[in-house]
């Protein structure tokens, strides 16, 4: 039997769709981890990216720091946070937030920084103040890229939230780690399939979101320079 047969067999067993270890319950946990980590990361990275992109100060630092930042090993941060917090259940938040920050920060910064100088001049010429230029021109123009960064971060967090199971938490990682521990291949396969499907759903959701909130005049500009 192939990987997909195993996954299919496990997923089509009715008993696996209810209870605290059922797919809906694990899905909810997985989405919960992802959402919380993303909100925290966005609260940190979005304003920072906008400010650095707007002022142009520290731009060079963003690129190099963001790159080395990616080296922070998720598993290491997880176990460290777990031990230092005295085994707190929220320890999974830290590695996931750390993971989500670079993509959001880099795209926001690049997006805001890349706004055409003529546009900003025109906005200032119309009498807009600096905060108005940021909120009415720079952020809307950068929006496609900002969404790209958020989507990237979300997908990475969805794929990585599996390791929360390592500190005895839930989410789809439970299936993968439990399956690994008990040599239950079907369980591992099902866990992997669930994560990939969730990542695909996120992908589509963000595409839809971009259609909804990106101003119509900017939709063709996603691919700049």
């Amino acid at each position, binding site marked *: 039997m192939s990987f997909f047969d195993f996954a299919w067999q496990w997923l089509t067993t009715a008993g696996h769709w209810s209870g605290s270890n059922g797919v809906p319950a694990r899905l909810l946990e997985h989405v919960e981890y992802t959402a919380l980590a993303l909100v925290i990361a966005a609260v940190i990275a979005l304003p920072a990216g906008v400010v650095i992109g707007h002022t142009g100060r520290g731009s060079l630092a963003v690129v190099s720091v963001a790159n080395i930042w990616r*080296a*922070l090993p998720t598993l290491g941060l997880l176990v460290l946070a777990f031990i230092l917090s005295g085994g707190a259940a929220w320890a999974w938040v830290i590695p996931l937030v750390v993971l989500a920050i670079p*993509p959001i920060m880099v795209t926001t910064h690049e997006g805001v920084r890349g706004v055409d100088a003529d546009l900003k001049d025109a906005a200032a010429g119309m009498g807009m103040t600096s905060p108005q230029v940021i909120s009415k021109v720079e952020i809307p123009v950068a929006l496609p890229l900002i969404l790209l960064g958020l989507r990237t971060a979300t997908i990475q967090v969805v794929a990585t939230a599996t390791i929360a199971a390592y500190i005895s938490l839930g989410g789809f990682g439970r299936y993968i780690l439990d399956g690994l521990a008990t040599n239950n291949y079907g369980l591992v396969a099902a866990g992997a399939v669930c994560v990939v499907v969730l990542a695909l759903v996120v992908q589509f959701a963000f595409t839809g979101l971009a259609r909804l909130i990106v101003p119509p005049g900017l939709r063709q500009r996603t691919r700049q320079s």
Partner: protein
Amino acid sequence: MSWAFSNASMLAHLLGQNAYLALVPVLAGLVVSLPLGILSVRWGWLYPPVLSITSVLYAVPGLALFVVLIDYTGLTDLTVMIPLGIYSLAVLFPSVVEGLRSVPDPVRQAAVAMGFGTWRRLVTVELPIATPVVIAGLRVAAVSSISLVSVGALIGIGGLGYLFTDGEQRNFTTEIVVGIVLIIVLALITDTVLVLARRVLTPWQRTDRRARRLASRRAALAVTAREASQT
């Protein structure tokens, strides 16, 4: 600190293993993504489907890939290296395409006018111009790979990641911190080597700040576009 010194030989071994497990797949990813990228620029229709495939693979959690591969490769280095190679490919492929697309049309036309054939143009004009963007992709791929190796520790092949699982079991934070620091050091060294390589390979960028800025922007976006379209 004294723990780190008294275990220096073990740490050196793990560091070497980590570098090997992480960087060989990046090279493999580069070797595959170069021709794939060149073909995708040549025939534009090839790009979206290849991008979607590499992107879906990128969304598969590393741990799940390891476990799936154990069936085929057993508990060998390959089990960890194949997923890392796939991730590297997913990062590098759009960088190669984006890099080749960054070649300005007049430059390409000038090469044609000078009588350069397809191959000569590719090797002497297009690939050198694409180099900064490709190297930016390599930096992300290499650094991520170095960090991702540690997840392999959950199946017993994880380079410095061993320090995390072992430290967790022994409730020993020093060991974990040393592991994190060594991974960052390894990433910093690798990153620096790549930046130096870019300087050596693209001497014209040294004098042209604007070109460098444009290249770095394009690179950053290529990398994110890859990450974002990873499904």
